[in-house]
């Protein structure tokens, strides 16, 4: 009997110690998670920078910044499946302010060139058309590098002339450092590195000062569901 009581006491003490230890470690761990989850995005949303690569109103309650690479298939997937309907719905109704951020990856041969064309088009206020053309024809220009062909198809001849003028010093790898458009791309990429963006696409959704990072391509259905929940808060 005494043996049984001693053993039971020993096991109970062990159990209580383990529960206490778990109780001590739980708040510490969750606090760490809270830090990860609510990681502040250490850059301000640039709302008035030229060239304009944004959709919608600055005063929309939700801001969604998307770091993407025009040659990345997942970025195309996000644009075609989620951002396009989002622009037509939540952006058009003033609920979402969508911001494109350039994050060209070195593994893609033509993504930097495509970003230059997109920034040149943004300088004349034609970013939306060029972004759509780049993603719609991604497979074609990714194969032969002829980005210009699809930019020309998306713009009027007069607009194309203006864009080509901005691109004069930007063709080819030899122009690195001499292209004025590169500063806009680098500005976005630097902002991305400070988050840090580890893959494209990466989206930072901001609502009432709270940041919600989302990586990878997601469906419109779940983006819409999340936005509805946010707006219903």
């Amino acid at each position, binding site marked *: 009997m005494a043996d049984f009581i001693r*053993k039971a006491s020993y*096991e109970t003490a062990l159990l209580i110690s383990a*529960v206490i230890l*778990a109780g001590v470690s739980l708040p510490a761990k969750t606090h760490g*998670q809270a830090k990860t*989850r609510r990681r502040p995005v250490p850059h301000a949303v640039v709302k008035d920078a030229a060239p304009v690569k944004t959709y919608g109103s600055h005063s929309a309650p939700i801001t969604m910044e998307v770091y993407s690479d025009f040659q990345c298939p997942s970025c195309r997937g996000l644009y075609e499946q989620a951002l396009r309907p989002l622009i037509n719905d939540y952006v058009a109704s003033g609920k979402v302010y969508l911001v494109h951020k350039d994050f060209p990856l070195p593994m893609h041969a033509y993504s930097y060139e495509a970003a230059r064309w997109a920034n040149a088009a943004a300088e004349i206020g034609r970013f939306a058309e060029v972004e759509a053309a780049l993603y719609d024809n991604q497979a074609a220009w990714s194969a032969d590098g002829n980005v210009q062909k699809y930019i020309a198809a998306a713009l009027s001849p007069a607009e194309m002339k203006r864009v080509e003028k901005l691109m004069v010093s930007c063709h080819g790898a030899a122009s690195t450092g001499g292209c004025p458009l590169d500063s806009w791309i680098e500005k976005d990429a630097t902002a991305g590195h400070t988050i840090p963006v580890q893959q494209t696409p990466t989206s930072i959704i901001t609502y009432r000062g709270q940041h*919600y990072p*989302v*990586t990878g*391509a997601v469906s419109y259905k779940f983006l819409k569901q999340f936005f509805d929940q946010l707006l219903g808060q």
Partner: protein
Amino acid sequence: MGHSVSWTKGRILLIVGRLGLAVVFLIAAYAKLRPASSGPFSLDSLRLSLSFFALQIDSYQLLSTNYVNFVAHTLPFFELLLGLWLLSGWRLRIPASLASALLLGFFGVMVRTYALGLEINCGCFGPGETLGKMTLLRDGSLLALSLAVTIGAFWTRSARGGDAAVPAPVPQKAE
């Protein structure tokens, strides 16, 4: 003298492993259910957290959109239940086996995702955690722990012909 030293050591390890696993599942559930915004816990905050978790699951590109919401809305509660069950120690073989099966599934998905080069948020302990070698190592270790607890639970039962939560008969030492 009651149990042999190895028996006692085995039981201690089993208790520690069980509690460790319980804490892991409780943390995982809490990280998914806690308010995603800075506000207090409420039904709205819970819905927001679950819809954000659905976004994480969707980014895995593994489940069809029909199943994403089901998994997002049931998995955190299942993890909570499993954590509490493991903590109680009642019929340990069942929650330990369920935990092993769940962790095996998670690990399989993570390995597949990593092999595909999709370096996405794993969402294991809430959103914002990117899948990488360290997360694979961590989940692999958890799977090993869970399998050890499962084997221990079955071994303990077969060694004394009862359940782990029931005190084992005390073998008498020969005088």
